[in-house]
């Protein structure tokens, strides 16, 4: 029996061996055949020599969350061989280099082996040892194209694109592809039970890393200053911003840059530069991860209290401390939401697709200016560093930046009274001015110390408290302005709340639960502070599951803390082992809750 366009293939390699680019081409080729594909590069915090895995899930129905169980294992790393063989589903395939025979202890009777003498095939063809090593990956790519029925033209076309400008590399790569393909056609027992065929399930979608999309969002949103410190998994965002800005933000006349990128000496400096820029009227952002947010916390308190816009991208990884720096988690919610000492809180945005990384990056710049406060975009490694199938990026040319309340010289002339922290409009947001605007009016002193409505230093008890209370009113304004949650409410008794990359396996999860007689309404939270819609959804349901990719159910904690929700009503669903959450992770915990409490399964079971 042949299964079309539905399998999980895992490549087990040694990092630094060039495998990532070959495996990336494999995935992209499938995407170009119009078949939905998801990629997860599971890599070590290391440059060369440690095990790395590259998972590709192919799914015609578009279920792109992580799925346990490997259908096809491409085992190219002797060190992890035993565990790689063990992870294959019964009936699955083991593809390996049989130049040297495998020990009998590594064999399994319930899987099918496809041995190919890759090293032996390469030896007579390439004299350069380094090339021989790199082309191992290309040879298995060629063989897989035959075994799985990937359009060979698509792959060779991709090699040509990949090595554009290094033309002397194109021919040897294509030769290596052909060696693999020809050997598979001549000697291997194909085609195998998993097959690809062209589809139109991709449509006009793109295949892009969230960090790249976020960088483009910041660029389109008008960011002119990017200050950052290298940290996995956020680095690629700052680098993408600079790369695209160098192409798209060059002044036509002078050929000079309409942006500034500073690689700072640490995260403290990075956020300081962002705050200084934004204070002086330039849109600015930094990209970091959990350890960076910890370091930036003092500055975040300053920007909260002094009311300065700033945009941070927290591409989350596994904490605490150094944790697992190259694995994914949603572990920074509480650290980001309440970063800094004293009473502080910061708006958060939760993208779940590259398209949303783009949209929310631009929105974050608007919201930070409007609310005069730091806004943190909470992405993660899974979304940030892997190419993800996404709706194409879109920009409405009629859109204008919301620069918030900034008075120019004419407006200052007309103003009766200027007080930086006066609530003139009843939304608890004052008017700010930029340095150098007016010779006589509008100058004020920005500080992290207590001040009155006219920005004058004071230790007066009433003035301090008035200010803190106004900041709370501003928080209520923020809750009205933040992006609304995405809700599918069919009037069921139970619901599920999730955010960020937990959206990836959610359709699949709900299908699985439906089959078990559990129907759930769903709400994807897109922002903190939570708007009324969030509270209404929780009120309307008897039971609400909250999905977190962290140990301590941080979103559930936020909901309980901010909404005075009865904790018994919010059931934690958690995954925090470093991979992205799978449908099975969520399905099993929800179902277990129903079973353990003998809750009635819902009636709308589809047969």
């Amino acid at each position, binding site marked *: 029996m042949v299964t079309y366009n539905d399998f999980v293939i895992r490549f087990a390699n040694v990092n630094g061996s060039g495998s990532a680019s070959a495996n990336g081409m494999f995935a992209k080729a499938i995407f170009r055949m119009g078949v939905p594909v998801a990629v997860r590069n599971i890599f070590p915090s290391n440059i060369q020599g440690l095990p790395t895995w590259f998972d590709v899930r192919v799914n015609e129905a578009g279920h792109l969350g992580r799925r346990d169980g490997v259908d096809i294992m491409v085992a190219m790393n002797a060190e992890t061989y035993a565990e790689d063989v063990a992870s294959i589903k019964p009936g699955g395939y083991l593809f390996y280099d049989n130049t040297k025979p495998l020990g009998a202890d590594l064999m399994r009777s319930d899987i099918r082996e496809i041995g190919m003498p890759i090293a032996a095939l390469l030896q007579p063809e390439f004299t350069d040892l380094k090339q021989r090593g790199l082309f191992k990956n290309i040879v298995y790519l060629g063989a897989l194209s035959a075994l799985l029925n990937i359009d060979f033209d698509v792959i060779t076309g991709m090699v040509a694109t990949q090595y554009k400008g290094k033309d002397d590399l194109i021919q040897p790569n294509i030769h290596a592809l052909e060696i693999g393909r020809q050997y598979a056609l001549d000697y291997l027992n194909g085609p195998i039970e998993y097959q690809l065929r062209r589809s139109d399930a991709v449509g006009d979608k793109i295949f892009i890393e969230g960090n790249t999309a976020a960088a483009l969002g910041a660029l389109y949103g008008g960011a002119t200053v990017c200050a950052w410190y290298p940290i996995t998994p956020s680095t690629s965002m700052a680098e993408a911003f600079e790369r695209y800005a160098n192409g798209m*933000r060059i002044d036509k006349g002078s050929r000079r840059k309409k942006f500034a990128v500073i690689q700072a000496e640490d995260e403290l400096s990075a956020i300081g530069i962002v705050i200084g820029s934004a204070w*002086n009227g330039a849109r600015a952002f930094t990209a970091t991860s959990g350890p960076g947010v910890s370091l930036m916390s003092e500055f975040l308190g300053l920007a909260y209290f002094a009311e300065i816009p700033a945009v941070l991208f927290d591409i989350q990884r596994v904490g605490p401390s150094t944790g697992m720096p190259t694995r994914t988690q949603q572990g920074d919610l509480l650290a980001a939401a309440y970063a800094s000492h004293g009473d502080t809180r910061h708006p958060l945005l939760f993208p779940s697709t590259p398209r949303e990384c783009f949209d929310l990056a631009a929105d974050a710049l608007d919201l930070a200016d409007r609310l005069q406060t730091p806004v943190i975009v909470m992405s993660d490694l899974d979304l940030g560093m892997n190419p993800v199938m996404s709706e194409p990026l879109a920009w409405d040319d009629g859109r204008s930046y919301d620069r918030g309340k900034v008075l120019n010289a004419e407006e200052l002339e007309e103003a009766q009274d200027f007080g930086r922290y006066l609530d003139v409009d009843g939304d608890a947001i004052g008017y700010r001015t930029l340095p*150098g605007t007016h010779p006589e009016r509008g100058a004020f*002193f*920005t500080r*992290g110390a207590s001040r009155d409505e006219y920005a004058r230093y004071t230790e007066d008890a009433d003035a301090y408290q008035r200010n803190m209370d106004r900041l709370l009113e501003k928080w209520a304004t923020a809750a009205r302005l933040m992006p609304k949650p995405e809700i599918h409410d069919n009037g069921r008794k139970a619901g599920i709340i999730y955010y960020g990359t937990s959206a990836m396996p959610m359709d699949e999860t709900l299908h699985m639960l439906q089959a078990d007689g559990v129907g759930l309404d769903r709400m994807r939270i897109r922002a903190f502070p939570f708007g009324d819609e969030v509270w209404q959804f929780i009120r309307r349901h008897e039971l609400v599951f909250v999905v977190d990719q962290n140990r301590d159910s941080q979103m559930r904690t936020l909901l309980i803390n901010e909404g005075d929700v009865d904790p018994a009503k919010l059931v934690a669903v958690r995954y925090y082992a470093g991979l992205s959450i799978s449908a099975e992770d969520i399905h099993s915990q929800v179902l277990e809750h129903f079973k353990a409490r003998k809750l009635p399964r819902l009636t709308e079971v589809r047969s």
Partner: protein
Amino acid sequence: MTFVAKPRIHHPQLPVNELGLTRRDYEGLVSTLCAGCGHDSVSAAVVQACAEMALPPHRFAKMSGIGCSSKTPSYFLDKSHGFNSVHGRMPSVATGANLANRDLFFIGVSGDGDSASIGLGQFAHIVRRRINMLYIVDNNGTYGLTKGQFSATNDRGSTSKKGVPNLYEPIDLVSMALQIGASFVARSFSGDKAQLVPLIKAGLKHHGMAFLDVISPCVAFNNHNGSTKSFDYVRGHSGPFVHADFYPPGEEITAHYDPGATEDVPMPDGSTLRLHKLNGDYDVHDRVGALETVQRYQEKGEVVTGLLYVDPDAADCHEILDTVDVPLNGLTEAELCPGSAALEQVNQSFR
């Protein structure tokens, strides 16, 4: 009462500069520092320098960190914006502010705790990046606000008020600034206005990172016998190597020294620095020589003052980054957003 505005009434015969402003227009709030604090002299020197140069008082951004020194931007130029940030982090905030608008005058005021201890890293990196600003350190060798602990610029063997000696080597910010990229480096003394005011003028007009270390004694905690940052010690152990007079474009140069000991340095905006070399053949353009001189005298417990190094042609951070001439904060949406057609091309590259 936690702030005191200065009354604006002034003597009718107070001199008026080219902008029609008197020095009162360059002042700030009444200082809340201790009576006799050296820092107040530095603030007064800033007021005098800016007023005499007739710089528009609202075209400044005053940046500071935390500490006694960092309070002083409240006490000058109250028509300009100020930013009293977090401890040791003025340099990063100043960097950002400067990136956003290259057309303002930036004055950073920091202290020896703020710049040589908690903020040493940020100090080093803003100097490396050559932000166009005047970076003043009010250097008193002590933590005033927390009542008299040694700071990192305190000399080894210098004693506390209670006679306890400092056990550690000092950090010399002037030497560091020379080493890592400042294109204008000077040291002065808060008690020597004749030297300080022209250095502030020159530093403000210098294009690039101008670092000015001002020994500014703390009258409350570090002005006793045994301290090497007291008024008496500094007066007795410091000497100017090069005196700098500053002349804006078109102004008659009135200082005349021996021809062999005079050098005129043209500044990028047409101003002139007339240097009076008080110590033989000292060369203000020799960075390594300046470093050696400063260190050699420091070894003897002596403080070299005056303009120590200047490179009027050095690039600033904006030139290094190759940013456009107009301030980044003034770019409009049309200049910043590449538009939907360009985005469609981007999309196509990801298919």
